């Protein structure tokens, strides 16, 4: 086993959670790498959907945006954006939706809209995009985010997307029938919601990470599972495939940049 970065561990741990028959609504960045890593390793038939309308896409390199041409060229079919949101997302066809964000709380509620007041923001963030309905329409939501005191906060400034709300059966009380955030993979640990309280709980620590290191980057008192395991380190295959994917991506995008 070679050495690996925390980001690599994060991507690989997220990839492992995906199954061969999953239909995944992919975002850009960490989710895109994790989804394509899964496809290139243990889940060759996984269906990757980007909200630009590309269904069953198999890009050779990671896209820079959710609408890159290669996503369309390698897709089973490319549909309009209204169809994507109506038939495929709202239609309940997606098993896993990936989310990330600027702020997250212990119940997987996410803010990507504003820091500060909505109408007089301290920082205006990009906004929700697909997130509000990804959070409610996908069967499950997986979250990938790097831990930091700025991001892992006791109280988020804005509910861009609803996770487990105040916990417990809050989703059900709002009439939401899907499971919501079922996995949080960070650069330090794997978190899963407590079955009853729905508070995200650390279930495995990445190799070499301590509980204190996790707590030091989180703005609430972290709950740890009764038995916290160690995340299995990346296998040689996982690392090789991920690094080759990144190398192809850099080469492709670097080349295009030079070309301009």
């Amino acid at each position, binding site marked *: 086993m070679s050495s690996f970065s925390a980001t690599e561990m994060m991507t690989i741990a997220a990839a492992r959670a995906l199954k061969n028959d999953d239909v995944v609504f992919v975002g*850009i960045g960490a989710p895109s790498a994790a989804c394509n890593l899964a496809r290139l390793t243990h889940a060759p038939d996984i269906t990757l959907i980007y*909200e*630009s*309308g*590309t269904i069953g896409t198999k890009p050779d390199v990671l*896209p*820079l*945006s*959710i*609408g*890159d*041409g290669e*996503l*369309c060229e390698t897709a089973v079919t*490319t*549909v*309009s*954006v*209204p169809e*994507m*949101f*109506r038939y495929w*997302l*709202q239609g309940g066809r997606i098993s896993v939706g990936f989310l990330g964000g600027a702020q997250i709380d212990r119940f997987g509620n996410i803010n990507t*809209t504003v820091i500060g007041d*909505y*109408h007089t*923001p*301290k*920082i*205006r*963030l*990009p*906004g*929700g*995009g*697909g*997130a*509000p*309905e990804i*959070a*409610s*329409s996908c069967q499950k939501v997986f979250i990938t985010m790097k831990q930091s005191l700025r991001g892992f906060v006791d109280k988020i400034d*804005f*509910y*861009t*997307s*609803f996770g487990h*709300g105040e916990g417990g059966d*809050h*989703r059900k009380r*709002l*009439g*939401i029938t899907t499971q919501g955030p079922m996995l949080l993979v960070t650069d330090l640990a794997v978190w899963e919601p407590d079955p009853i309280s729905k508070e995200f709980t650390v279930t495995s620590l990445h190799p070499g990470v301590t509980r204190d290191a996790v707590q030091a980057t989180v703005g609430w008192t972290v709950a740890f599972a009764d038995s916290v395991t160690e995340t299995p380190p990346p296998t040689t295959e996982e690392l090789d495939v991920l690094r080759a994917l990144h190398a192809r991506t850099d080469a492709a*995008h670097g080349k*295009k*940049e*030079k*070309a*301009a």
Partner: protein
Amino acid sequence: MAAITTLKDAIRDNVNSGDTVAFEGFTHLIPFAAAHEVIRQGITDLTLIRMTPDVIYDQLIGMGRVKKVVFSYAGNPGVGLLRRMRDAVENQWPRALEMEEHSHSAMAQAYEAGASGLPCAVFRGYLGADLKRVNPNIKSVTCPFTGEVLAAVPSLRPDVTVIHAQKANRKGDVLIEGIIGVQKEAALAARRVVVTVEEIVDDFGDLHPNLCILPNWTVTALAQVPGGATPSYAHGYYDRDNSAYLEWDKVSADRDLFTTWMQENVLDATPDTFADRIARLKETAA
């Protein structure tokens, strides 16, 4: 019937100060050349609709042409934030910017409702989300059969929709291929439709029957502008100029740099600039 004309005339005849305008294209086929022509013609006080404002609206906003923006994700795709839009929201530079913010799902379905002639889109959305707390244009409707409370937003009905497409034929029928986004819906929802295309062909020939086509009588004005989508891309013609999106992050970080860049690259330029850009792109790639 589509008038086949120049970009200059198409914009002059169809886009007025104070209009509500949608420039659509989802990463792919973003009509940059048309937006630059709008800037050059001094058209202002626009209400702009777009799912992802992207660099195209960052430029219009930074130039002070925009009164209000209706949107769902204000990022520079794959790069970061839209710095001119943020400056307008946070610091009212160069002017204050009204915002009406939705989710992608709401925007896509609101265009769809507009194309469908309906006053509102009814959908399952915003469950537990704060946007419906801050946006008075998010209301609800109750299903008369199940009692489920569904979200409702007004349908989008732009005065003008501006899109870029691959091809038109001499009659003015327009073909869109690849990532087709919401262009068809945005066009059919609008009172007037301006289309720029990579090329105008004599005849489409033997097209597959189910391709995405806007018949000529749904198009108000049509102009050939090769490269008109750069730095976005045109499937089958040229790739996305990712470096330009990265460069924009630097240009837009500084008000003066931005102003200089817009002067050189937009105000002092012409639609032909776009053809030059893709020629250069292709040359360097070869």
